[in-house]
Every structure is written in C-alpha cells, then in structure tokens.
C-alpha cells in the first residue's frame, strides 16, 4: 500500500493555508483602529469555521483528483471467490413498518441466495409490530419454500439499543460465523456486493471491517429526491476523498458494512459511560466507537467507495431529517467523553472530533452571524473594507459551491452517467436548484441544531425512537407549529437589520430568506406530488429511477405482500390458534421478560378470557403476549 502520510500532510497544509489566507482577509475587514477583544474573538470564531468548510472543500478536491486520475481507492488484495466463510446478515429492527422490512429481507434474500444466514433481530416494543414481525417472518419462510437460513429473534427489552441488539446476537450466535453484515431497517444490498465483501475479507485477513457506503434511493417526496440526487452526484467525490485520506483508518457508519465477528467480539463490547444521559449512560452513536476500538486493537477499517450495490433510504421530509439529527447530535456530543480515551489512534480521534464539529458548528455559525451583524452595524470600517469583504465572500462561495461544480465536471466525462441523471441540461438545472434548496435549508438546520445543542447541554436527553420512513404530505398546522419560530426569527432578523444596520440586509438575505420561507419550504418539499412533478420535468433524476434497480424494485413490489394481515394483529394471538402456536414457539426461544406483577397478570388473564381487551395499554399487551402460561391455557 502506498504511504498515506504525504497526502495527509498536503491536505493539512491546504486546509491551514486557505484558512490563514481567509483570516488575513477577515482581519483586513475588521481592522479599523486596532483590534478590540470582541474582534479578536470574532476572528477566532471565523478561523474555526472557515477551517471547517475548507476541510470539506479540500476533501472533495482530493476526491475529484482521485476520480479524474482513476487512483485506486481500495488498495486490498482482490476478493477470493467462492468463499467458504460463514456470514450472517443482520437486520436489527425497532418498531419499523413490518411489510417494508420483510420486503427488503425478501429482496436481499432473492439477490444473495442461500449463501448467507439472515437474522431479523427485533427489539420492537410495540406489541403490534412484534406480532406482525412474527407473522411476516413465517409467511416469508413459507413463500421461500425450503428456506432454512432465515431466522427471527425478539428481545423482550431493548437493552443497549441497536448496539445491544448486535451484542446480543454476537454473544448467542457470533461463534457460528466468520463475518456479519449489519444492515439498517431501510438498507438494501445486492448479492454481488455481499459476496464481494466476503471475498475481500477472506483475501485480506487484517481487515476487521469494510464499509460499503450506501447510496440514497427509493423515496419519492421532493426532499428525499433532492437528497438522493445529491448523494448520487456529489457522494462519489466525498467518499473518494475520504477513502484516499483515511486508508486503513476508516470509519463505520453503523450499517451496510461487513465485520469480522471474532475481532468485533473481542474488542467492541461497549461500556456504559459514568453519569446520566445525555453525556453518560449507554453510548448512543456506537458505530464510530466500534471502528475506533477495532483500529486500537490493530484491525484495519476500510471504506470501499466503488463497490456499489449498497443502498439506504433518506428521511422523507425535513422534520424527519431534523429529528434524526437530534439523535445523532446527542450521540456525537457524547463522544466528547470518548475522544481522548486511552490508546485510540489519531485518525479515530479525528473521526470523533469531526462528528462532534459537524453539530457544534451550527451554534458557532449562529454566534458568528450575530456577531458579524453587530459588527456591520457598529464598527468603523478600515480602508480595505470593501475589497476584503468581496474577497471573503468569493472565497466562501467557492468553498461552498466549488464541490458541486467539481462533481459536475467529473460526472460530465461519463456520458452514460449523464444520461442516467436525465441528460446534461437536466443535470445542470438540478444542481442549480439543489444549491438553492441547500442555501434555504442551511439556516433552518443551523437554528434547529443550535436549539438541540442547547437542550442537550440543559441535560434533556432524547430517546432513540423508531424513524418515520414513509412518504407523506405534511399538514399546514403541523408544519406551522414546528417552524413558526423559525419564520418569526427570520422576520425579527430583517427588522433588527433594518433598524440597526440598514445597508447590510443584502448580505444576510439568503440566510433570512431560508428562515422566513421555512413553512412553505417544508410543506412543498415533503410532498410526494411535488417529487413526482419534478421527476416528470426530469429534475433530480438518479440512476435507480432512470434505469431501475432490481433489488429496490423487488423490495417495493413485495412491500404489500408482507404487510400485516389485520389491523389489530395482537388479537390474532388470542383468536387464531395457529398464530398463537407460532407466537408460543418463538417465545420459547426468547429470554424471559422481567417478572410481571402477579395480581395485574391475573386480572389481565381474566380480561383476556372474557375478551375485554379494548382498553389494554401497550404495557398490558406486552404482559399478555409474554405470558406463556396464560396463552397456553387458551389453547
């Protein structure tokens, strides 16, 4: 493998040099009659944030160079095929839409064939989901006649969330396997990719984990389609840049990755952090930590940017996206407790620090903007003020939009890819509209993430609830409740600027426009109809839409066949002897739940016997469905 150090030093030099140049220009803007304490603080804040966007810009430039020169991004021995290794494909689920989950399992199974064992590892706490999953599992086994490698396991308590779920698998069945492929509930992978990953692990015994970066596909709302387009057009440069710079010091994104089971079991047991959430307790964003622990133990962690065949679905609406960010934000801030942990390699610490910074940058931007606005309103300007401001703005625009232009330049070389994105004209229009959308979305996300960080620092923890993954138009009253504050703050910003810095509104207009337009922006982009209209106009097209994608099309086609068979599937356990038999058989493999209150259990049994179940709470249902003795007595 070529020495990776020179390219890392070059990257560091470019980030620092561009930051120094920008800070010098900024100092020219600020210099009136020497620097005040406030101006020095402003300059420091600017330096941090400029370095942050410069690091992203240069990463993309590295990616572009790698793509244009065809530089090898995964310097590993070629895969050994066929493999004799035993590999488990794990799909952890938590109160997900059951039909869609099992349709994806079905589609992956069809693509991967009998070479793998499939485990649906349920942590569902919703009794409806629990029973629906059991029925869907049994139905799928029946449909795939003779299949003996599709397993289902339900945990009565979701201790440790997803990482606890995987740990439970490892502790019970890990020894049976060489590798495991971790999926998310919305993941899809092709059989070819799965077999290639296994072959790569076979051929490279130092590899502990290989991440197959997932491409966003499969949703229809305008917001989701814009994200899918961005992932398809800009993603390849980003992943190429990452692969080039991280080498064997890669990261793990929590799913769509293959892991060497014995390395994981030996080194990746996660401790509970001292103290209470949000900073203490269970580690929420476990993936970065697991990659860091594998690296600490000497295992290589790779990313395979060109392997293909790895997909996931984006959140369908802006509120869903922000809700997911709330959890990720808390998980990443928790890494403040871990970033200095003993023995971690420097690149692993950088992964953790960059994860923290991707959220901490929001309140810092907010602070910088407020401080800049006050400066514009109050300060006397130096002689080079206007030229320095123009230089800075041009530099910032180059950093923000340069990667998009580079991505277009790289993509435009491949006619086939251009056609798959709707043709050159449609591609350029889509990039321009995506840039406009990003500019409007950025201040909304900045404000929302700043609020999240404030609440987290206040000690308000969030759960790790099920994600909303279905396309749906959002009603006005719901959006107005969520984004009324953003709109009001945008209007307030205009008034304050008009009152105190009347000449400066133009500079802040793009930011304030995003906030003022947040409600219509959320409504329009959540709409599947708007997504469909954009598709008719050939906007935001991606290869999975123009050429089709077999595994995705199969998952969509199969979704309705795996949907729950009744509105209230819980009652089927009481009413249908075969469903009850299946449920009892699966319970026999499940660790017993915590002991129930005997008096309450007796009361529930009596109510079940009389079928007075209408008023059952979720906890009541959990007790009834876990009551082996009571259910057996119904037979």
């Amino acid at each position, binding site marked *: 493998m070529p020495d990776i150090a020179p390219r890392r030093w070059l990257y560091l030099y470019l980030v620092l040099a561009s930051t120094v140049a920008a800070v010098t220009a900024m100092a020219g803007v600020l210099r009136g009659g020497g620097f005040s304490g406030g101006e020095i603080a402003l300059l420091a804040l600017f330096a941090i944030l400029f370095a942050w966007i410069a690091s992203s810009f240069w990463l993309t430039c590295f990616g572009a160079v790698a793509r244009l020169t065809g530089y090898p991004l995964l310097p590993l021995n070629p895969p050994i095929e066929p493999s004799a290794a*035993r590999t488990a494909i794990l799909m952890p689920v938590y109160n997900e839409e059951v039909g869609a989950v099992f349709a994806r399992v079905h589609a992956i199974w069809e693509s991967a064939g009998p070479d793998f064992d499939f485990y649906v590892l349920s942590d569902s706490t919703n009794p409806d989901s629990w029973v629906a999953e059991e029925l869907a599992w049994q139905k799928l086994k029946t449909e795939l006649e003779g299949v003996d490698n599709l397993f289902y*396991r339900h945990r009565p308590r979701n201790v440790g969330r997803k990482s606890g779920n995987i740990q439970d698998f490892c502790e*019970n069945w890990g020894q*049976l396997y060489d590798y495991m492929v971790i999926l998310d509930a919305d993941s899809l992978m092709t059989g070819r990719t799965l077999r290639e990953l296994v072959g790569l692990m076979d051929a490279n015994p130092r590899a502990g984990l290989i991440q197959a970066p997932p491409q966003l596909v499969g949703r229809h709302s305008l917001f989701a389609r814009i994200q899918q387009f961005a992932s398809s057009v800009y993603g390849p440069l980003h992943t190429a840049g990452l692969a080039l710079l991280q080498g064997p010091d890669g990261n793990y994104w929590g799913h769509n990755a293959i892991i060497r089971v014995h390395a994981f079991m030996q080194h990746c047991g996660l401790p509970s952090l001292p103290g209470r959430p949000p900073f203490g307790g269970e580690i929420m964003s476990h993936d970065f930590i697991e990659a860091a622990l594998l690296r600490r133990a000497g295992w290589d962690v790779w990313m395979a940017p060109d392997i293909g065949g790895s997909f996931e679905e984006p959140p369908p609406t802006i509120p869903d996206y922000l809700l997911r960010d709330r959890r990720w934000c808390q998980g990443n801030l928790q890494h403040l407790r*871990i970033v200095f942990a003993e023995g971690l390699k420097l690149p692993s610490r950088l992964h953790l620090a960059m994860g923290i910074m991707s959220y901490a940058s929001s309140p810092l931007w907010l602070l910088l903007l407020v401080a800049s606005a006050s400066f514009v309103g109050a300060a006397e300007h130096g002689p080079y003020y206007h030229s320095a401001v123009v230089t800075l703005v041009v530099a910032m625009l180059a950093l923000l939009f340069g990667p998009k232009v580079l991505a277009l330049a790289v993509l435009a070389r491949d006619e086939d890819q251009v056609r798959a994105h709707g043709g050159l004209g449609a591609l350029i229009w889509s990039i321009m509209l995506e840039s406009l959308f990003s500019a409007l979305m950025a201040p909304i996300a900045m404000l929302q993430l700043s609020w999240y960080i404030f609440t987290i620092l206040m000690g308000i923890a969030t759960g790790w609830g099920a994600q909303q993954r279905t396309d749906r138009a959002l009603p006005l009253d719901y959006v107005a409740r969520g984004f009324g504050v953003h709109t009001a703050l945008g209007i307030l910003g205009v008034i304050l600027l008009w009152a105190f810095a009347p000449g400066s509104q133009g500079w802040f207009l793009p930011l304030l426009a995003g906030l003022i337009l947040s409600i219509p922006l959320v409504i329009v982009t959540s709409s599947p109809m708007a997504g469909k209209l954009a598709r008719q106009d050939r906007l935001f097209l991606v290869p999975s839409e123009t050429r089709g994608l077999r595994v995705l099309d199969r998952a969509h086609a199969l979704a309705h066949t795996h949907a729950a068979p009744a509105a209230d599937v819980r009652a089927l356990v009481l009413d249908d002897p075969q469903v009850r038999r299946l449920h009892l*058989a699966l319970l026999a493999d499940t660790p017993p739940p915590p002991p129930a209150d005997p008096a309450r259990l007796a009361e529930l049994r009596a109510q079940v016997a009389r079928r007075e179940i209408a008023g059952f709470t979720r906890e009541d249902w959990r007790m009834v469905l876990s009551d082996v003795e009571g259910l057996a007595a119904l037979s």
Partner: protein
Amino acid sequence: MNFHIRSFEPSRLAQPEISPLAPTGVPLSCPRPMRAASLAVPTPLSLFGTMLMALLAVPRGAMMASALLRMRHHRRA
C-alpha cells in the same frame, strides 16, 4: 379472521454439525459474553474533560440557580 399460516416448520442452520437444531426461530445459541472495552481517559486529559464537562454544565447550572432564586422569591412573596 381468514388469515391462516400454511405451515410451521422448525428452522435450522446450513451446517447442523456446528449448530444443533433449534425448535423455532433461531439456531441454538453458543453463549460467549463480550467483554466491555475500556474507554478510560488518561488522567491529564481526564482533568481537561472534567473541566470541559463543567463548562458545558454552566448553562444548565445557571438555569437551575435561576429557578431556585425564583422559587425563593416566590416563597417570600
């Protein structure tokens, strides 16, 4: 209710010599616990981390102090 399960067969692994047959959803388990890794921070950095955490706790502390003051004021009134 018209829904019926057509069959219910025990599942099994492809390599029965490795994993004995299980009666239902999963292969019989071969338990082996995972040991929790240490994420301890070296002492000087731990001190830095403690200071950082204390700094991060300032807004929370300020809010609690303000709530306490308000409560006392309310009681006096």
